[in-house]
């Protein structure tokens, strides 16, 4: 966990450590409106009221914050592994300028190989997809490093400790 939080910081991702019961409040603290999100899986707590689920494409484009679960955290890289789901983790974590990713501390694996071992099974069995997201989107194509190219400018991780 220390390695994970250290690496999150290396990649400019802020974070909160919290218990499941306090997840809604923790999200509220780092969310700007309008906010959209997906219902969190069991054990990761609840979304606050202010976060809309099931956004329309227009809401997707207008939202300022997107709140989603992360399937895994990767300690070595400070990465959040965002699953592709029918309720829209991928677009909701991508279109808004601020992404809040919620991950269980129990799902933080040490390295890249561990993450791919987990994903390999899921991809073969259920043809799933995922994005290994590390820090905000970025580009150096305009003559200097800029955070926030096509994707989020800022990322916040909420680490849920059961």
């Amino acid at each position, binding site marked *: 966990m220390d390695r994970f939080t250290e690496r999150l910081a290396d990649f400019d991702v802020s974070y909160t450590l919290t218990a499941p019961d306090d997840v809604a409040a923790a999200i509220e603290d780092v969310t700007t409106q309008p906010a959209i999100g997906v219902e969190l899986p069991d054990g990761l707590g609840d979304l606050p009221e202010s976060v809309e689920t099931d956004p329309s494409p227009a809401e997707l484009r207008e939202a300022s914050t997107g709140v989603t679960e992360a399937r895994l955290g990767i300690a070595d890289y400070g990465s959040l592994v965002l699953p592709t789901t029918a309720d829209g983790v991928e677009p909701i974590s991508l279109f808004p300028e601020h992404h809040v990713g919620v991950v269980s501390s129990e799902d933080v694996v040490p390295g890249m190989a561990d993450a791919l071992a987990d994903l390999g099974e899921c991809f073969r069995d259920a043809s799933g997809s995922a994005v290994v997201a590390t820090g905000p989107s970025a580009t150096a194509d305009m003559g200097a490093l800029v955070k926030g*190219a096509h994707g989020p400018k800022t990322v916040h991780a909420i680490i849920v400790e059961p």
Partner: protein
Amino acid sequence: MTGNARTTKAEHIRHLLETEGDAVAANTQGFNDGRYESVADLEDYEALKEEARAIKEDAIERLPDLVDELREAVEENGGTLYLADDAADANRYVRDVVADVDGDSVVKSKSMTTEELELNDALEADDVEVVETDLGEWVLQVADEAPSHIVAPAIHKSRESIAELFTEVFDPDEDLETAADLTMFARRKLAEKIVDADVGVTGANFVTADSGTMALVTSEGNARKTVTATDTHVAVAGVEKVIPSVEDLAPFVELIGRSGTGQDITSYVSLLTPPVGSPTLDFDADETGPAADREFHLVLVDNGRMDMREDDDLRETLYCIRCSACSNSCANFQQVGGHAFGGETYSGGIATGWEAGIEGLDVAAEFNDLCTGCSRCVNACPVGIDIPWINTVVRDRVNRGEDAEFDWLVDGLVPDAEPAGLDPQKRLFGNFSTLAKLGSATAPVSNWLSDLSVSRGLMERFVGVDRRRDLPTFQRETLREWAADRPPVRNPDRQVVLFPDLYTNHVQVERGKAAVRALEALGVAVRLPDVTASGRAPLSQGMLATAREHATDVADALVPHVEAGRDVVVVEPSDYALFQREYERLLDEDRYETLADGSYEVFEYVYGLLANGADADALADGSGERVAYHSHCQQRTLGVETYTEAVLDDLGFDVVTSDVECCGMAGSFGYKREYYDVSMAVGEDLATQFSTDETVDRTVVASGTSCLEQLDDLLARPSKHPIELVAP
């Protein structure tokens, strides 16, 4: 090459150096420094590279089976796999897909393979609007320019020039000045295009046969949007991108960003098993729909790759993961970028392999000479491709296919096993052994002759030797002649055979004498064999048959000594590297191994003697003398430059070492008229490092012949081989 072609090429390169050189240098050198830092953080970098290499070797070996397995997986997932023979076939397929969904707009994320296919032109011919969403690619699309780098396509453009371009083309309301302004402007413009698009086209960095998963390594998020916002996804990838399993992605994901731009990892590694499971997004009707409405087509492109797979020398090219390390670590690329050092699509060292395999030898021939064989890319390549060897082989093939022109000038003077049509410049430099012998035999007349402006003019015109360069000064007494009169060492501890390479024997004789004196002072008997030409010169010109002849002569002369328990010591680092690396390709395995194991770079050997109890007092005392040392590129690739530093340090010298990848001279390269400017531009970095307050009054030493010649041209003060400092 004719004199005129040389002039045109020289002008083209000079123009690029002036217009793009600074931006390219700043970016590539930044990436290269980042690579060194980022891989240093890995616990087991070498093991990861070996793992990556092994996966690629296995995948290419089993490629047809893996494609079958992949097809099954893709179809089971609900997608289609199309294996396209060539560019026309692939383009036709993609056009049909777009037409089938009545698409009139396509958004694309970055894909070199689609550039190879010229897919945009094919779609535009059907009146389909094609928009590149990678910001760098989009800048080039707006500017109508070609990429100058395989990963960061617009590195030749400065922020100012992009601001100017946008202002001129879009006439925006706001002032665009900072990189952030430009990025946000582009983001807004492209967001509109993305939500309007019918079809999303991506590349794929890797595709796994077990599950039909593709990995896309990106930073901006445009590939994610391209896939998510469109219902129809077409992925286009070279057929070599298939690897066995999802788990096999691990070493590549860890290496690709570090090797390329020096990032531990890029922002996004999308692992997509398409059609992806996100809801569809209809921005016009403001509705979402079920993921089941998504369509996916994987287009795997052959376009020459399956033939490369059968080609023993080009096959390694297919292991390439297009990370760009071989561009960024290349001293010449750092100066000229991909607009000079590149072909139709690909650029940098490995582009020779890609362009030769995909486009043909003629395209590869246009830029292949910019690889000097310095070998700095070899350790940088995450899949261990011997990139210089691919360049050498292609050069050899080009030589064999080229037309004759001024053969008469060098024919007869330099008999060799090369084809009659060989470029006379290559033949001249490749047969340096003949010239060197003649040079010493007739010195000083040969030196006066080569200095006469008339003969320099002729040489420039007919063989392209730049007249701004000083030619080597041949010594009347060769090293071998000098050594013949040495009194024998009594009761020697060891027996050494010192390889009297051409330069040490004929030109830089003083460093050879110093090596003999130093070794003898340490209790070693030294003899000089009757062989001087290693094959380095012909090898660098792509004259493989001649190089092989020389290698065989060297092995005939040296292997018996090694078998008799004598050690081979080499002064010239490029020849030492040859014994260790390229001879593996030129000799039979046994003799190669015997010679490689039995030979040592001179300082490596001195270090070993001192470590085994030889008396350091027998050598010169450094007494704090301040020294600036430039090691040799190939020496650094083999990691033996540390011995020179260690010995100098031990003896009390105060040493600083340069950290440029190469001096820029690289054998004959810097003598060639068409490359003189690049060579000097590369050398400038070295000259700058040796002209700071800290270094400007230090004694300059360098291990390589070429480096010494380059330093002589760059600096006002003289330079010498470090062995001359320590010899008694």
